[in-house]
């Protein structure tokens, strides 16, 4: 387990903890910047999404892989942990399809290319 791997005299749990704390600090600190530091350019919502998702993935990986031992444990546990991902993806797909934007606001490659008209008029 993680306590047997030492980096600079400290085990993997310690470094994982430090990385989690750093990224949380970064995540919280970033909220205080509405504009890019030193510029007058507003931080776009997509950049905010990007930061939050990337930081979330890093933190989730750190907790799952090292604190929950998925990195070292038999792979069956990793498969169990990833199993709900299928349903989460289905949910996200459902969100896309059930959103009004899903009809004509999504890119053409993932829709039947409705154009502006999606209801058949008689």
């Amino acid at each position: 387990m993680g306590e047997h791997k030492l980096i600079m005299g400290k085990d993997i749990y310690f470094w994982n903890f430090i990385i989690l704390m750093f990224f949380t600090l970064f995540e919280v600190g970033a909220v205080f910047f509405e504009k890019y530091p030193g510029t007058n350019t507003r931080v776009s919502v997509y950049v905010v999404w990007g930061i939050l998702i990337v930081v979330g993935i890093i933190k989730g990986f750190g907790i799952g892989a090292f604190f929950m031992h998925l990195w070292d444990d038999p792979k069956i546990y990793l498969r169990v942990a990833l199993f709900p991902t299928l349903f989460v993806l289905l949910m996200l797909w459902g969100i896309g399809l059930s959103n009004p934007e899903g009809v004509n606001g999504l890119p053409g490659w993932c829709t039947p290319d409705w154009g502006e008209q999606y209801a058949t008029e008689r």
Partner: protein
Amino acid sequence: MSGGGHSDVKNAIWMRALLMAGIILGLGVASYVGLGVVVAGMKETTWDEEADHFHDAEKDWKDAVAAGTIESDDTSAELYIAKEAAHHHEIDAHLSYLTYRVAGLTMLFVSIIFTAFLVISGVLNSAQPDDEHHDDHHGHEEHHGSASPIIFAFGCMLFLIGFPDFADGLHSLMLGSGSDAISDLSVGMIGLTIITIGIANWWREDLPFKGYGEQIATSDPFAGQHIRKAGIWVFLMSEVMVFATFFSSYLRMRTEWCTKWAFDEGTCTLEDGETLAMTASDYLRPGGAAGTGDFWTLLPGAINTFALIISSYTIVLALKVAKSHDYKVPTGFMGKLMPDKKSAIRNYLIITLALGTMFIVLKLVEWSHLIAEGFTVGSQEGSIFYISTGAHGVHVFAGLLIMLYMIFKADTVEWDEDNAQGIEYFGLYWHFVDLAWVVIFPAFYLY
């Protein structure tokens, strides 16, 4: 306290548990008296004074408008500025009062539950005839069947049936007007009591189990794995689905709300009479649309995020010490705090308990502020926020009760590499709670 010689738990350990219950209750009462009565009383006086100032300032402004000396829409008028400043001071004083009042009440409430949990377990143990104390399964070193999960599930059902009224009662309590709170809380409290009894009975039944001799699964897909570990992972994945449901509901609604953020990005427009949708982050985040967010409003959520990460680390340290062959006593203060392996495990768990309790207290303080500012469960935005963060808070609280058991068991079991699974499996649950917060915090507080 214990039933006698056949019990696997020594009297001294039960007495220590009761002593711990007394200390917890004492801390709860002291917190309530100190924070919820004395400090909150002073803050209430300040709030009353600020309210009087505001009413005076408002009266002066209205008189001036009526006399025609200033226009009602003149926001640069001195009286208008004074009125608005007084209003802000009154709101600040109100929120300050709520902080101490809710913190004190929550500490008292949590300490009563913790104490009840410890005492009920002690009473259940001591009420048994001596011959029933003997652990028949001790020789087999394996877990046995139990009715406790059914009692626990029944309690959960009652609690959920009474939950709508329970939420109303809690709401009244938070606003300091608790006249109907008792009747509103009753069904939920009965459910909680049955849950407590179920867990306490579970505790009593599990105490003799020393943790050796894990049952091994013999069929696929978990062949060769510990059955309890496979069970906790399957349970956690069902929990992932619960939180995924909340989260996808939130995302689905969020994509339709015309928030300030969406409005500024040009992804939505407002028709005549429509207003921007206000999410929790609009109240909490600096620059949020409600105009109330700053460093201090985000602070409780941020502290809670750090608290959960630290608590994830302390539970890992407890497991690490439990599995260690040669415990090295740390130097300095930590050495005094953790002079031997047993106390090190127990104290790491106590630190985790304290951090989790702080999480609950800060969460309810934050909720009280949001409710006072008008962000209630009555709106779609409020409903999904309170349900998601509330469900997470319930998981934290359930974890704290299990932690109490783990702390108690730290005194009864000599944990080593072969029997520390209890900490490991509980740790998996606690890390999951942390993981859920990793998603909830940015989604509800920062975005």
